[in-house]
Each structure stands twice: as C-alpha cells, then as structure tokens.
C-alpha cells in the first residue's frame, strides 16, 4: 500500500509535467501517427511523370550507362535505381547534383530524374520532389519550431513526458487492477475523463515508455554524443565513428572500365547471398569502373531497425557482397541495440500490421494528452449552486482555449497542408515552402481564433474546420478525377486511395465530434468553459445529453 501523501505528491508531478508538455506531445503524436504512412502520403502528393514511360528493369543497364556518361557527378555521388515503380519515384533512376546555394532555395543540390526516349536516347530533367511527407515528419520531430531550438526542446519535453508516465503509474497503482478497463460514461464528467485518460495511458504504457526513452535519445543525440566523447571515449570516439561508417565507404575507382552486371542479375545474386534482405532500391557508385559498387539498403527479415541505412554493398561487376557490416544480423551489438531502439520509435519493421498499430497508438497518444487537459479543466470547474451564476477561473478558460486552438489547429493545418500538394502544384514556385506557409497560417490562426472566441464556441468552429480540411483530401482527388483540366491528379494505387479513405473516415470522426460538441455547448451543464449558456439559463433540450467537450 502506497502512502496517500506519496500518491498526492506524484499526482502533482504528473499533473504539472503533463500540462506543461501536453501541447507539444499532442502535435508530436498526431503528426507522428501520420508519418507511419509517410510513403503513401508522398505518393499521393507526387504528380504523375507526364510523358515518361516506365523503363523495364531489363533496359536499366542502357539507362545507367547513358546517365553515367552524361552526368559524371551522378556517377560519382551515386545513381539511384528504383525497384517499385511508386508514384513518388518520377522515373527508373534519380540522383542529386550539387548546386550553388541560392536565396530562397531549401538546399544546395538539385534532384534529377532520367528515362529513355522511345528512340533509346536519354531524357534527363531536374525536378524537385514533393517534400510534404518530410514536412509532416519535421512537425512531428520539432513541433514546428526550427530544429536548432525545436529538437533540444522536444528532448526536454520527452524527458518530462517520461516523468509524467512514471508518476501517473504510481498514482494509479492503488486502483490499477480494480479499475483496469473501466470507462464509465455518465454524468460524472471528471470520472469519465479520468477513465478515458487512464484506459489509453495504461493499456499503451509500453509504447509510451519506448517513445519517451527513444525520443530523448533522438532529440539530444548531439548533446549525448558530445557527453559520451568527454566522459567515456575521449579521442577514440572518432575511431569508433570511422568504424561505424566503414560499411558505407565505397572502394576507390581504379579508372579502368569494366562491364557492369545488369540490375536484374544483381538482384538474383543478392537473393542467393543474402536471402533475408528485402531491397528498397539500388545505388550505383562509380558506374562503369572495375571498382564500381552498389549499395542495397533494405529491411532484413526478423530484425527491427533502420531500413534506409541497413543493407549490404555489392560489386557492380561480379555481384559479390563487398560489405555486409550494415546488415542487421552482422552489426556490432552496440550498433544493433541503437538501431533496434530507433526502429522501435519509427515502427520500421514487419509491414502493414505494425504501421496500423503505431498509427492507432499515435492517435491514442494524442488523445491521451487532449483528455489530460480536459481532465485538468473539469477538476477545476466551479459548479453553480442553486442555479446561481458562477465565473470559471481564468486559468481554466485559457487552458480550454489553448487546448482547442493548438490541437485542432495542428489537425486542420496538417490536413490543409496535404491538400495544398495538389491545388498549388504548378501554381507556386516553391511548393515545399508553401506546405509550411499553409500549416503555420492555419495553426496560428486557429490559436488566435480560440482565444478570441473562447473554448466552447471555437471548439465547434475548429472541429468543423478540421472536418472540412480533412474531407478536402479525398474531395481533391475526386475533383482531379472529374476535372482533369485543373491540372491535378488522382492516382489509382491502393496506397494512395488508402490516404483518401483514411482521410474520409477521419473527417467523419471530426464532424461527429463537432456535432457532439455543439450539443454540449448548447445543452450541457452551463457552469463550464464548454458551455455557451449562462449558469441558470435553461437548456433547450428536455432530455439529458451525453456530455462531450
């Protein structure tokens, strides 16, 4: 039995750590849930490659030869050969070339793609790929604050999140078994929000603990790296770093020409030598040289880890494995442990089952922080006695507005940022910059609206906005299908249609919440920040209404 004063202490710790980090964690979890489908979102947002016929894998050697001859820098830096034919892969091969950094440009390199014309000659063009999915990931990692400040801040938030989790479990211990699975919906709103909060927090506790620990490590990686250098490794850290980078270092070119093995043949050789590796793509370095190499990143069956870094290096001449130190089953134990933790954070293992599980757990995490705030407000609600008037405290009114503005502003902002990928394509110079503009305008506008109109009214407005913005995702695809002259596109793959279907379902959920909230503001208890009625004013409804805020 835990002493009641200890429970009270941990409750205070849980409450204040939770309240202080809740907004950032809501954004991180909501955007994080979307990043589980980063690839389908990138595919949905990528325009079709107009006039570019897909080059069969058997014709790839000719394409690679032409690119290597015409673009020496690509030959040196690496020519990426795509294997899946997804919509976000503009052609069979792509690469990056250095470019002088220009004002207003996001980076100092240019993305190129290349294909074969019908007459067998090379068609190569520079084109910026959609960075929408990366933008959502940035919001997830640093909640929209520039990374230099955002990452350290999110490290601190993650630390406090871990403290809040442990404190919350200690508070719950005395009633953990008795109340497990309890979700009592009724007139006792405090009990209802407490149950709604606890069910999600306790049943998904292992997920949250892993997220808190790995997020601290990921956000403070620079600081931890420096501390490790000072405290443990000293000068040896550089040596260890070199050893870590060894599997990615390509052999020096000899300058002698050699015949390259065809990609289809390379894949067969790979299957024979490393049968458990599922290749994502191939990167050819020094194509045409006797020392040419192919990096093959991918997932290895049975291992949790980074699918972009793990993999092997093959000889482009013989197809033999040159280096396999980055293969999960061959990594050093310390590297393997780090990769496993990273993979557990990002859900990079198995396939669709884990992506959907992380998606729902991410949304449930966002809901956990939202309900935490609602519980804080409900706990501090001043109840009217005998129909008399009562003013809710300033802190609850402000937290109510902030909860609605930040959380729903993030939802609506992300949805409209996704929609912008199709509506603004070809209409603005730098679409990737506009994703951020759309997000911040909606997000900050929502916060301003929430404080201007109060929690109750703005909750309805912003839920309607979230529903409309999210519904705009499938409607945009439908519009593209019905009106091709608008210059938008509607891909027909299961992954891109999945984005539309999930957005449609999400929009219905937000619409349902908007209706429930509207009823709550009109007919729920008047002595609350979630009511637009004055205390004592009668509800228009004669029957009791389930209270939703």
């Amino acid at each position, binding site marked *: 039995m835990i002493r009641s004063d200890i429970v009270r202490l941990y409750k205070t710790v849980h409450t204040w750590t939770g309240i202080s980090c809740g907004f950032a964690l809501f954004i991180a979890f909501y955007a994080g849930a979307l990043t589980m489908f980063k690839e389908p979102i990138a595919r949905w947002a990528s325009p079709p490659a107009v006039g570019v016929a897909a080059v069969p894998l058997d014709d790839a050697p000719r394409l690679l030869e032409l690119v290597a001859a015409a673009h020496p820098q690509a030959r040196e830096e690496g020519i990426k050969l795509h294997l899946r034919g997804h919509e976000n892969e503009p052609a069979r091969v792509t690469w990056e070339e250095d470019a002088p950094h220009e004002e207003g440009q996001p980076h100092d390199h240019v993305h190129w793609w290349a294909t074969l014309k019908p007459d067998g000659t090379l068609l190569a063009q520079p084109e910026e790929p959609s960075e929408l999915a990366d933008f959502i990931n940035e919001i997830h990692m640093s909640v929209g604050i520039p990374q230099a400040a955002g990452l350290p801040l999110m490290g601190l938030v993650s630390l406090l999140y871990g403290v809040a989790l442990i404190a919350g479990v200690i508070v719950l211990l005395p009633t953990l078994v008795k*109340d*497990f*699975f*309890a*979700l009592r*919906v009724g007139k006792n709103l405090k009990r209802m929000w407490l149950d709604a909060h606890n*069910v*999600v927090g306790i*049943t*998904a506790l*292992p*997920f949250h603990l892993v997220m808190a620990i790995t997020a601290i490590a990921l956000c403070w990686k620079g600081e931890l790296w420096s501390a490790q250098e000072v405290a443990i490794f000293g000068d040896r850290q550089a040596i260890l770093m070199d050893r870590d980078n060894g599997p990615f270092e390509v052999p020096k070119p000899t300058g002698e020409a050699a015949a390259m093995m065809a990609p289809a043949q390379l894949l067969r050789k790979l299957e024979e030598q490393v049968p458990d590796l599922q290749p994502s793509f191939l990167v050819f370095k020094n194509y045409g040289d006797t020392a040419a190499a192919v990096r093959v990143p991918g997932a290895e*069956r*049975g*291992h*949790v880890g980074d699918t972009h870094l793990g993999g092997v290096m093959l000889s482009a001449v013989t197809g033999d494995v040159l280096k396999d130190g980055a293969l999960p089953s061959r990594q050093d134990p310390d590297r393997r442990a780090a990769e*496993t933790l990273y993979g*557990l954070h990002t859900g990079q*293992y*198995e396939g669709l*089952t*884990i992506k*959907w*599980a*992380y998606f*729902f*757990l991410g949304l*449930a995490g966002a809901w956990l922080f939202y309900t935490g705030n609602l519980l804080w407000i409900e706990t501090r609600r001043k109840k009217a006695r005998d129909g008399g008037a009562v003013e809710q405290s300033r802190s609850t009114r402000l937290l109510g507005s902030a909860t609605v503005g930040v959380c729903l502003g993030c939802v609506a902002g992300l949805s409209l940022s996704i929609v912008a990928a199709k509506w603004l394509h070809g209409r603005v110079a730098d679409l990737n910059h506009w994703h951020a503009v759309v997000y911040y305008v909606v997000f900050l506008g929502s916060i301003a609206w929430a404080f201007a109109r109060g929690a109750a009214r703005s909750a309805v407005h912003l839920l309607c906005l979230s529903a409309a913005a999210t519904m705009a995702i499938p409607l945009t695809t439908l519009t593209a299908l019905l009106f091709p002259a608008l210059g938008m596109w509607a891909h027909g793959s299961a992954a891109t249609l999945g984005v539309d279907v999930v957005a449609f379902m999400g929009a219905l959920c937000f619409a349902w919440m908007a209706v429930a909230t509207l009823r709550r503001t009109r007919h729920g208890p008047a002595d609350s920040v979630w009511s637009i009625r004055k205390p004592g004013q009668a509800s228009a409804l004669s029957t009791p209404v*389930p209270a939703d805020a």
Partner: protein
Amino acid sequence: MIVSLALALTVLGCANIYLASPHQKWRARPLPRTPLRAAGSLLLVAGLAAWVAALRPMVGFFVALHVVMVCLFVFPYAAAFRSVGRGH
C-alpha cells in the same frame, strides 16, 4: 496466412481478456470470468507463437505486443461508444 492467424488469435485473446473484466460493457450478463481469462491467456500465447513463427522472435514479439496494446484500448472505447449510441 500465418500472419492472419496470428492476428486473429491475438485479437480474440484480447477480446476474451476484456470480456473477463468486471468493467466489460459488451454483454449485459457477464460470462464466467475464470474460463474467459484462461481462454484469453491461451489464445494470446498461441498468437505470440504464431507471430514468432511468421516473423522470427524479436519482430514477432514486438508486433504481438503492439497489436495487444491497440486491442486493449480499442475494446473499452468501442463499448463506450456503443453504449452512448444506445443512449445509456
């Protein structure tokens, strides 16, 4: 095939565990708890074994764990939404 079986066993195992809880809201008249708990535990163990067989130990364990977590919070919420929908 084995992944579908593993998923079905895990979801059914969690459903049994939920139905064995005194707070379950799926049935107006609760079923006997001890047999449900035993069946739920057996199904979860079988589900874990199937995940491990399909995906090898480490990945199998983590996939099973995450599916269990999702089921354990979805079931009470599904029941609560159902009771709200019925006006209880």
